[in-house]
């Protein structure tokens, strides 16, 4: 029983990170109709920039904020430089540009920060907390808190602010949004910045537990995308649900089958969901047909 609880905690910990990355996919997909292959690199940049700023001597909180801000700026610049020139065109071209851009971001991180794994200090020092006999690392609590905060802030932004309504209008019907005076181009830029910031939060929160390196982006991209597809691409609530479920599936596989198969779970989930239920677990019956 204790063992199961421990696996559930581990699963919800990783699942929260996948949820943050999945939210980034969902936001950009809603705005552009394309999959952003650089999403995993934003996760990587968050962790690596956090390490970089804290090594500069900034207090951890400040370093984290700086890392999130810089990553969001990178997301916005990425959209302006690479995606904007071909916006409205073939989604294949947008995807190709994000693939190339992901490689460039990864290489930039390699040249700037080097090839080694880096660790970030835990947000609060101290022994693990006890929950019903299971150990919960303090950093795990941070991960949950930050994910919850990000989700609440995002929900508030989307539902309660004019800016958020403009974002939603853009994603539902871009031309109609433009007709009523929404600057749709700016909304796409903001969605990249927002997606990058969410990825950065994930990368920062998990860096004290797993360490980070320039190369972690692609793998996290696949997992975040599998989570987004599992929930239902384009729906933020579903993305979070998909992330948590994927995390649980991984940790239960690692715990009861073999840790070696943990990384296979996301790919298999991705293929099975595409084959059996492409609208995702929480999607309606509106199957995307050709």
């Amino acid at each position, binding site marked *: 029983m204790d063992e199961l609880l421990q696996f559930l905690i581990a699963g919800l910990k990783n699942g929260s990170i996948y949820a943050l990355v999945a939210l980034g996919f969902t936001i950009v997909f809603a705005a552009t109709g*394309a*999959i952003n*292959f650089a999403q995993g690199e934003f996760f990587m940049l968050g962790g690596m920039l956090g390490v970089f700023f804290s090594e500069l001597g900034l207090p951890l909180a400040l370093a984290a904020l700086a890392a999130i801000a810089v990553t969001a700026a990178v997301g916005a610049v990425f959209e302006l430089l*690479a995606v904007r*020139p*071909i916006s409205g065109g073939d*989604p*294949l*071209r947008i*995807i*190709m*540009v994000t*693939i*190339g*851009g*992901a*490689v*460039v971001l*990864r*290489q*930039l991180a390699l*040249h700037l920060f080097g090839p080694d794994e880096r660790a970030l200090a835990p947000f609060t020092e101290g022994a693990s907390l006890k929950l019903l006999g299971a150990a919960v690392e303090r950093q795990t609590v941070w991960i949950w808190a930050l994910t919850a905060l990000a989700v609440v802030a995002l929900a508030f932004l989307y539902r309660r602010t004019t800016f958020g309504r403009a974002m939603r209008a853009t994603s539902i019907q871009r031309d109609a949004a433009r007709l009523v005076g929404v600057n749709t181009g700016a909304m796409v830029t903001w969605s990249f910045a927002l997606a990058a910031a969410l990825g950065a939060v994930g990368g920062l929160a998990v860096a004290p537990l797993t360490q980070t390196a320039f190369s972690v982006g*692609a*793998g996290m*991209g*696949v997992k975040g*995308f*599998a989570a987004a*597809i599992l929930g239902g691409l384009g729906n933020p609530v579903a993305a979070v649900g998909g992330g948590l479920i994927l995390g649980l599936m991984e940790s239960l596989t690692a715990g009861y089958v073999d840790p*070696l198969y943990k*990384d*296979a779970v*996301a*790919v298999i989930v*991705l*293929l*099975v969901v*595409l*084959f059996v239920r*492409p609208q995702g677990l929480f999607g309606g019956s509106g199957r*995307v*047909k*050709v």
Partner: protein
Amino acid sequence: MNLRTARALVPLVLVAVVAALPLVVSDRFLLKVFTFAGINALVVIGLALLFGHAGQVSLGHAAFVGLGAYTCAVCTVRLEWPWLLAFAAAGAVAAFGGLVLALPSLRLKGHYLAMATLGFGELMTLTFREADPVTGGVDGLGGIPFPDLGPFAVDGAATLYWLVWGVAGLALLAVYNVTSQRPGRAMRALHGSEQGAQACGVDIVGVKVRTFVVSALLAGLAGALYASVVGFVSPSVFTLAASVTFLAMAVLGGTGSLAGPLAAAVLLTLLQYIDALIPGIPRETAQTIQTYQEDIYGLAIVLVVIFAPGGLARLWRRRPRGGETA
């Protein structure tokens, strides 16, 4: 001689140049570089079919090359199969892997295949590294014999070169035939408009799946050739970086063409070994190119897609048209 006959002669001249190269180049290492160019060309021909004709992206082609290479290695070293059988098995295993990925991913509109192949690639890298009893783990698997084609011994630098380019040439011919006939028109049609193609009776899912399986098959055969030429396989070769390299070659080569991607494959391979190609090149220059190699591929993809979506093929095609009007 008018322009049209001149253009018709170009492929013949190129074939002659490629075939005669070992007679001119005596340096064994340089010949090996050109052999690698042929192996990459074989992969890129399949990728060009997928990307340039069917409009789909693969970020996992290095994994199919790896599947082929490891299948060939295991079949020849551990099972002691004849080489030709191992070669065929390598193609079959890679093609089957392609089918498993393509069926779920290509049923839907959108670009799920790209993500599925990215995940598959990560998974295969892990498998090559962790499945020690079969793959030899991080240490790799050595002692792979040279290709054995019955009466023809393929064990020298020149004969290996001819074998690799022979296979690449046959693949090119086969793919060219496919693209210039009904399946090729179907592919181009669905690249233009999937609904339009479907309305004209094109089985769009079938065409896309078959295209992907063929490109995985060619990658698998290229992997078997790689394993046989090098004699050793290790997990560090078949990575995401290699998949990106293949993709960059296909993108730089251009859409709707085979000559463009073929040229890009050869050029980018030679760039990797520029110090062998140009002996006088300063050490620092060669090292800089090698350090920033992946940056070059990533940037090339971004810049070509934004500024020159037609790629190299477009430059080549535009010139004679200008000549005709003049």
